[in-house]
């Protein structure tokens, strides 16, 4: 493929996936001067919207559907983005450069961007198909959960991850009872350190959330087709009116795999978000991507990652310079807590707590020698912001200074 062909601003770009990643890729292509046709295929019937508020502000009734939508209806027509909403892509033909939709339409492309995201992992146990057993991934999921919550309702959450904790906090705000059932001995077991797990469990507990840890889930029990309880492997039954299953996400990589593209628990891409096929990109939750800072590949589930890769693909297609690499980061809002995480604790040999855990204002730094690999900050924006910069710049720090909150983060980083 010649350079001219690769950077043809009039090329036809097809984006599969109408989430934050896919919607943003269309927008960045236009920002970067792409003039060719853009087709956005999404299996939900909605225009691209923000998912993070679905378990937070939206669930509590503090944000409406319009505010969640990334761009207004009118933008897509004005920007010349053709929409195929409620449409499912069923196969790729990379030789012919076409995508087949379930509607039998065949969509040709010069460049393809796979932004198919991830889906909620299902629990294949008896009763999983009862009414009231819900997941939380889409706006439709969130509608179902919201309509089941309210004063006196009993929510059982299976899985003590971020989605579960956020939903439990929102449920409490709506006057519902919430019980979190977790297989491990602590919440956030796979995604946060012990200190943070302990802190969040205590904070939720003080606000009425009940935890059942080290608990296997055997089945969902129901009456007249609706869930009434969660049966644990030790025989206990947690009575409830609604269940949220929040046990992780599975990448929607089937389309890519069936077309012979490599997946390693996520579609493998390079730092330009390109797969092994130069005309096929993949972005967002579905990808297994390089993390140069940590010298490995990983699948990230976050909006910043979706935006970064959307920019990479748009830059590669339009022949623009690659945007500077970013430090992975994540956030969560629960009650009056703002959790901000920068970096990933790979290869860390030490954890250092700065601040006051009991006062809900602290940060846990994950160090590898005198380098910061990651920081988890609760109500501590300076620690998050300065920590993020330290991770990116690989500046060595003095751990004694870092542990002393009387020394400002500016002086620690100096």
């Amino acid at each position, binding site marked *: 493929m010649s350079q001219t062909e690769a950077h043809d601003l009039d090329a036809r770009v097809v984006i599969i996936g109408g989430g934050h990643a896919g919607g943003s890729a269309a*927008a960045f292509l*236009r*920002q970067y001067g792409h003039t060719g046709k853009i087709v956005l295929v999404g299996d939900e019937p909605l225009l691209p919207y*923000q998912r*993070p*508020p679905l378990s937070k502000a939206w669930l509590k009734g503090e944000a409406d559907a319009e*505010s969640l939508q*990334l*761009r*207004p209806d009118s*933008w897509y027509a004005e*920007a010349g983005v053709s929409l195929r909403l409620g449409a499912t892509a069923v196969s790729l033909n990379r030789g012919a450069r076409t995508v087949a939709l379930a509607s039998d339409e065949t969509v040709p492309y010069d460049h393809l961007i796979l932004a198919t995201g991830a889906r909620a992992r299902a629990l294949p146990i008896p009763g999983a198909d009862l009414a009231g057993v819900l997941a939380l991934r889409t706006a439709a999921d969130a509608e179902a959960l919201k309509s089941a919550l309210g004063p006196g309702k009993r929510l059982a959450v299976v899985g003590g991850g971020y989605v579960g904790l956020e939903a439990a906090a929102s449920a409490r705000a709506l006057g519902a009872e919430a019980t979190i059932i977790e297989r491990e001995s602590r919440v956030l077991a796979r995604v946060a350190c012990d200190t943070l797990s302990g802190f969040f469990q205590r904070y939720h507990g003080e606000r009425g959330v009940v935890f059942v840890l080290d608990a296997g889930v055997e089945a969902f029990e129901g009456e007249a087709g609706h869930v009434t309880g969660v049966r644990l492997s030790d025989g206990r039954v947690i009575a409830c009116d609604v269940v949220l299953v929040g046990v992780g996400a599975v990448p929607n990589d089937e389309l890519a795999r069936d077309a012979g593209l490599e997946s390693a628990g996520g579609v493998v891409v390079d730092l330009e978000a390109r797969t092994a096929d130069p005309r096929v990109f993949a972005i967002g939750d579905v990808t297994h991507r390089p993390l140069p800072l940590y010298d490995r590949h990983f699948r990230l589930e976050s*909006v*910043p990652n979706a*935006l970064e890769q959307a920019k990479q693909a748009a830059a590669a297609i339009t022949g623009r310079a690659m*945007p*500077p690499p*970013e430090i992975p*980061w994540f*956030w969560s*809002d629960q009650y009056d807590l*703002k959790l*901000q995480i920068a970096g990933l604790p790979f290869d860390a040999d030490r954890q250092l707590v700065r601040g006051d855990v009991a006062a809900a204002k602290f940060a846990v730094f994950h160090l590898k020698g005198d380098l910061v690999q990651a920081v988890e900050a609760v109500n501590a*924006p*300076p620690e998050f*912001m*300065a920590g993020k*910069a330290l991770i990116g710049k690989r500046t060595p720090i003095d751990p004694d200074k870092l542990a002393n909150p009387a020394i400002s*983060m*500016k002086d620690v980083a100096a």
Partner: protein
Amino acid sequence: MAKITYIEHDGVEHAIDVKPGLTVMEGAVKNNVPGIDADCGGACACATCHVYVDEAWRDKTGTPSAMEESMLDFAENVEPNSRLSCQIKVTEALDGLVVRLPESQH
């Protein structure tokens, strides 16, 4: 509606009618103004919607909260008129507002 002019770092201007009730950040993102990323969607968690408020408008846009202040403290290229645009609510009183964008949000 309030007309807000967003000026990119290279001088390109975008004059946008923004509905009161939205934030200055949302006015930019919903109209695809380049240079405001807003990774966190307005949660004051990321500082990627940094703008410089035109001097004439600094009083009318109010003062940053402690949270915004501490985020800005560590953002790149901060000036005395720096704000996070997700924290500025648009009202009719902001009709005519001019904000400039930094070279980079990261």
